[in-house]
């Protein structure tokens, strides 16, 4: 079943000034991701994965090319415009969790919705939803704990709850297990895929973990800032096993 692309990347290039020259980190990358797809961006360090994620999620502006996110071209938007798009359609999960240290787990989860709408009635609804989400990720007893009072795995669960609170159309995960031990990583990844499947969200994971990438339906390989392969090996993510993949240097 083919739906309209939720993410369309057109000849995306990102360079940074380096003295008198320009260092091109990403060069003419094009691809599109359909709604509901799960996709991994795989590549060695310095291949441009994080830059590509930043550009796709509207965290940065490209040197040239364009990104269409949920049908909206990001090129014409200023930073506040891109922030609105992020808040409307994007969810994030980061390697180092990126929770606000001064907020409780519940408050951290509430932030994206609070940014969207205000009012005491809304707040009550958001608080209820956030509580339910934390319950869903197994932290129902730790709503009022601060990030420093939670383990790494627990922090990533809070981040997962936060990522889903605004019912995003697309979820970007940047090395979501990079700071976790193997056991915790497995549990978090299972939870991520389960929730993704449950909410029908498009998932894009940036990783160099082949095993994790193998759980997605599609793998985009980057090397030296260029897209070197685009492999679709299953239609739906979260299946029991992944096909063997050749290792990257």
């Amino acid at each position, binding site marked *: 079943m083919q739906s309209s692309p939720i993410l369309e990347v057109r000849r995306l290039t990102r360079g940074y000034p380096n003295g008198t020259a320009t260092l091109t980190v990403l060069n003419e990358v094009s691809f599109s991701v359909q709604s509901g797809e799960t996709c991994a961006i795989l590549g060695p360090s310095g291949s441009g994965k*994080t830059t590509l*994620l*930043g550009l796709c999620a509207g*965290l*940065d502006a490209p040197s040239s090319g364009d990104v269409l996110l949920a049908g909206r071209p990001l090129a014409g938007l200023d*930073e*506040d415009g891109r*922030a*609105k798009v*992020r*808040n*409307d359609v*994007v969810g*994030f999960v*980061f*390697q*180092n969790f*990126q*929770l*606000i*240290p*001064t*907020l409780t787990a519940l*408050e951290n989860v509430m*932030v*994206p919705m*609070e*940014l*969207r709408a*205000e009012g005491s009635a809304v707040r009550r609804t958001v608080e209820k939803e956030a509580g339910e989400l934390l319950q869903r990720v197994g932290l129902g007893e730790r709503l009022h704990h601060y990030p*420093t009072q939670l383990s790494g795995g627990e922090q990533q669960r809070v981040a997962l709850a*936060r990522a889903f609170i*605004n019912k995003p159309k697309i979820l970007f995960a*940047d090395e979501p297990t990079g700071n976790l031990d193997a056991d915790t990583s497995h549990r978090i990844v299972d939870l991520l895929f389960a929730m993704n499947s449950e909410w029908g969200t498009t998932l894009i994971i940036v990783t160099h973990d082949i095993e994790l990438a193998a759980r997605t339906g599609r793998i985009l390989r980057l090397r030296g800032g260029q897209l070197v392969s685009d492999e679709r090996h299953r239609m739906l993510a979260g299946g029991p096993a992944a096909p063997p993949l050749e290792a990257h240097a």
Partner: protein
Amino acid sequence: MMALLQALFSPWTWVMAWRDSRTSRARLFLFSTTIVLGVSALVAIGSLGRNLHEAIQEQAKGLLGADLVLQSRSAFTPAMEEFFRGLPAVEQSREVSFSSMVYFPKSQGTRLVQVRALAGGFPYYGGLETAPASARDAFRSGQGALVEESLMIQYRGAMGDPIKVGNAETRIAGTLLKIPGETVAFATVAPRVYITMDEAEKSGLLNRGSLVRYKAAFKLPAGMDAPSLVRRIRPQLEEFRLSHETVERRQEDLGRSMENLNRFLNLAGFVSLLLGAVGIASAIHVHIQQKLASAAILRCLGSTVARSFAIYLAQAIGLGAAGVLLGTVLGLAVQQAIPHLIADFLPFTVAFKIHPWPVLQAMATGLGVCILFALGPLLAVRRVSPLAVIRGGELGAAEKDPAQWAVALALAAAVIGFGISQTHKWEQGLGFAAGLGAAFGVLSMVAKGLTRAARAWTPRSWPYLLRQGLANLYRPQNRTLLLMVSLGLGTFLILTLYLVQRTLLTQLIPQHDASRPNAALFDIQMDQKDAVAEIVRAQGLQVIHLSPVISMRLKSVKDRPIEEILKDRARAIPNWVLRREYRSTYRDHLTDSENLVKGQWIGTATPGAEPFPISLDEGIARDLHVTLGDSLVFDVQGVPVKTTVASLRRVDWRRVQSNFFVVFPKGAIDDAPGFAILTTRVESSEASARLQRAVVREFPNVSAIDLTLILQTLDQVLGKISLVVRFMALFTVLTGFLVLVGAVLTGRFQRVRESVLLRTLGASRRQVLGILLAEYTLLGLMASATGVLLAALAGWVLARFVFEVSFAFVAIPLLVAVIAVTLVTVVTGLLMSLGVTRHPPLAVLRAEG
């Protein structure tokens, strides 16, 4: 801007600001105290200004004691008396005042006082307060004199004791406590003795050429407007050369003086507030640096720039509001103390009330300045890239935010605006802002220079602890700039005040020189001068100068009559120079306090051979716009005397000796009536008292000025003034100290991990403290040294261009200041850092989060 305002008015912004401040509230509250003193000063002074204004309005009539007062330097003529009688007054009084020695036979004390002879019911408003109260009626009915309280204490006077003024002898009727419109400070300088008009006549002191003032005071019918009466009688006032004073004029003059006092105090308070705001800016800077990661997360989750900025702006507003509220409470308490400080300078009593408007103004100023200073570091939030969340480290954009310029401009406009609003003169307002800006600029430049020098020139051969201490000066998040500015500015302000006071005192106190006179006898009649000189010599003292003094007024300058010049509105010559009474002398030599700067000194002249060649003081020649060869005609007690300017002299007016604006050659006016001044040198106050007693006993009309007494009096008055100044300076010093504590604490929060890491790697507590010691010593030393240099420069500029005197540089107190400020910095720095080294590294790491 609209987006920011919208975000700022959104309740969620404040909820988020409150949530986000959880771990830093205590710290932020501590930093808010840096503006407490500045705000409290402004609150207290704002209300003081309003209270002074109200007191002047309420006690208006009591300030003058009458509705109209007319004054003259010469005795009222029958024509004047006729004119006074024709005025529509309900009651009128006369007062004659002059300076003279008063002699207390019982204690054998003599002292130069202001003698006032009163006839009539003056004061009509405000009352003459005496102790006992009945003494006032006793005095009015001619039963004795009223003597100033300070004199009664000094000479152990009691009711009924005899006192002698010139040839008149009377008894003390009681103590004079208060007279309308005069200050305690004035009474300290010139203690007053009230006698009756008959006794003044009997004293024989009224017709001896010395300065006597004649005053007529009028009580007008109820509802009569004194200013319009003055307008009506102006031609007669000019004809009789009478000056006038009305309640309205006294109110205006007093109001102006009080406003000046208020403005000075307000500016001092504002400086303290600015210094505190620097502390706030630094605290916000550190706070924001710690919050940039959270700001990046918020941006990543979809927060707009304005929204995330508003959250941290709300925190800064909260921080400022806490400081402002505390400052207001303290200010209202301080307000009770200020009237006691300045009571001696006020000719009226001040009832202290809290006025909401000045308090609100002060609060708004405090909050406004605080927010403006906080905006600079807050702007970093606007430049946070959401990309930082995945990239890490890249929290702010490298390029400068153009809004920084807008903030800097707004800050400069606010300081200039406040300066102008207080001084009411744009040049002075600009000068105030420029001076502060220059001090900030120099201190910032020194701080930058210091960090660069520490980075570039720290030799590798130096001990590790010293190198680490120096490295702390330029490492990221260093406090070099903040400490340099706060410590340097505090040192600069305090020392500038000290140096100016010192310079002025040095001007007033002549150099110690055994050959120079330190006492003067004046009002010596010409026929008494040999006998007085004999008494002086009999006391074993030397007659250093014996100068004749002839009173005269200018009649014409360069052939233009004075009246004509006075009518010329475009004239450059000041009024007082044309109208004043010149007390001139004649002699054939220059004294050691004079130098000839232009022309030829001509010491003798043939009587009648006009115009006489005279010598002028170069200052008065400049004021009169005359030079060598120009003609001046003097009215020497009715006789016109033509002169030409033959020479100009530079006169050292600081010397206690008979200095003159105009010196005639010997032979020119020798026969004119006058009196003489004799100067001598006494080695002790006992010798001075002996001389005064001997002279006054023989010649009661002769007055004596004792330099030691003048210096004591001056010291008292300056002491009271400097108490007020120091009180205000205290606000700045304490603010500087609070900023220092705050800066050290922010440093502590920043450095704690570094210290813990060092300790984890095996550094001892001593070694960690050694690094801090090196850092604080250097900071304290550089900041205080820069502050001292700036103060010396400001002191010199003020001495040279404002007070027009030579600058008195003093090395030792400045050196002491450098050492003291460095010590305070080091001790505070180490005390505030003790917690870091006292606990085990793990405990500290957990506690600091």
